[in-house]
């Protein structure tokens, strides 16, 4: 899925490299120490701009954002709902 690659690229370019290099699609970004509260906000702005979607406060939850797979699924869901 193209979202996965794009999100992974964003994470590799913007967060700590060592960890992001080894990152698996289902790894928890929080547990791996890749993302913190500012990181989540950066990630959300990236998603909003890149895919032209609006992420609501209620959607800022680990179920949507805490792994590459979850983020990709979340983007897919948002785009489907929009269409």
């Amino acid at each position, binding site marked *: 899925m193209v979202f996965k690659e794009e999100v992974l690229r964003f994470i590799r*370019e*913007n*967060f*700590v490299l060592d960890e992001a290099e080894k990152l698996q699609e289902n790894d928890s970004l*929080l547990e*791996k*120490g890749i993302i*913190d*509260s500012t990181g989540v906000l950066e990630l959300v702005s990236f998603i909003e701009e890149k895919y032209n979607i609006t992420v609501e406060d209620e959607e800022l939850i680990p179920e949507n954002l805490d792994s590459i797979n979850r983020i990709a699924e979340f983007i897919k869901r948002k785009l489907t709902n929009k269409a």
Partner: protein
Amino acid sequence: MLLQNFLEESAYKFPKKEALICGEERWTYEEINHKSNQLATFLRDQGICRGDRVAIFMDNSVESVISLFGILKADAVFLMLSPTLKPLKLAYILNNCQAKALVTHASKLNVLLDAFEATPTIQFTIFSGDKTKIPGHYLSKSTLWDEIFSSSCFSPLVPCCNIDLDLATIIYTSGSTGNPKGVMLTHLNMISAATSITTYLENVPEDIIINVLPLSFDYGLYQVLMAFKFGGTVVLEKSFTYPYEVIKKMVKEKVTGFPGVPTIFAILLQMDDLSRFDFSSLRYITNTAAPLPVPYIKRLREIFPHARLYSMYGLTECKRVSYLPPEEIDRRPQSVGRGMPNEEVWIVDESGKRVGPGVVGELVVRGSNVMRGYWADPEATDRVLKPGILPGEKVLYTGDLFKMDEEGFLYFVGRKDDMIKTKGERVSPKEVEEAIHALEGVAEAAVIPVPDEILGQAIKAYVVPKNGYSLKEKELILHCKKMLEDFAVPKYFEIRDSLPKNASGKIDKLLLKKEIERNGQ
């Protein structure tokens, strides 16, 4: 009285009461007390003796709480290490205090694998989490968390030999040399601080405290210690990364106490329409690290109309120094208040003489909460612990510059040395400069504090690239994130061709600071 008595007495008085809510898990006092007894017995059986250091390296979790009490019950000294610690510093700390054992989580393996070889004093490691992630050769030297509690027959816990003058914990804090220093705190130190704080917060057993701060930060650790003292409940979160989750928890669990720092309140206040939530249970909010900006105070009041706002100040060496009674916050929003109960504070000039209102000087603290000194560093200890009023007594010279108003309320002015106070943590510029120098292509680096409304002070780094190299800000940030704990990563970078030097050829930081005063960061 020993620190673990907080848990034991609450387990006796309120055995079935919920002590800890962590994710989906809910733990009673009786359960936590029982598990910590089992852990203590295990530690003793493994050869942990009175006064031995045992480190805890994991995210906020029920395991970290059980561990700290288990270690105390084994008459040992616990170290609650920052979960964002990097391998070099982790190894330094474990070696510095000669830690004998480590309690950790499988998710920390990436950091541990790099530190293990360098920490020969560690005799055994206890792992919680997914065991399939632990490489075979470590598994053979480790114990799994669940195995400790699986045995049904347990030898009874041997009574403690410690008295309240013995060490309960060592908390590592940034030192001016670049290496962290271990603040030694006795049971008496911690019981005194916890008693003073719960007195002015007027805590009751019905209190439910939400803690999003790491337990490695003494502000976070004390939320658990204090709640266990008064028999309250702690809702323990790993972090404030997902603020919406935390807010839902606060409403669901009818939280009465919310300790935070300005960075947390800043994120909270950015969220839309918080007025739709029912926060009527919230009785108080505490803030430390930096005074809250006045507009924040106003907005926090609108969102949390029932909550009293406490502005506070402290340092690891004595835990807490002062608090501002909530009714004073509108009159003196920039003040961090007065000394807490059972503690005396005053301000001295360079010669050690007490100064009057309006005069800037170093803050001195006298109380049973003042630490025993820095671990294995008598010289650094003598610089901050100096003779007090009574023979043999020591008082703490904080290194923080303050002034007092006519009514005795305190105002933070800055640091006496070049340490930076950011997000409530002290950061050594030297440590950050050394980290930056480790990046290829860096010729010079200078780190200074700049005023910041939210962080208190923010960290600014000036970097000069070597000839033939070009450095980018992003590259520097990523590098620093790899080398340093989160709070020590500079907020601002400025890449320059050269830096001003003073007569002795050193980088002239004073001049850089003056530039900031003139032009802003």
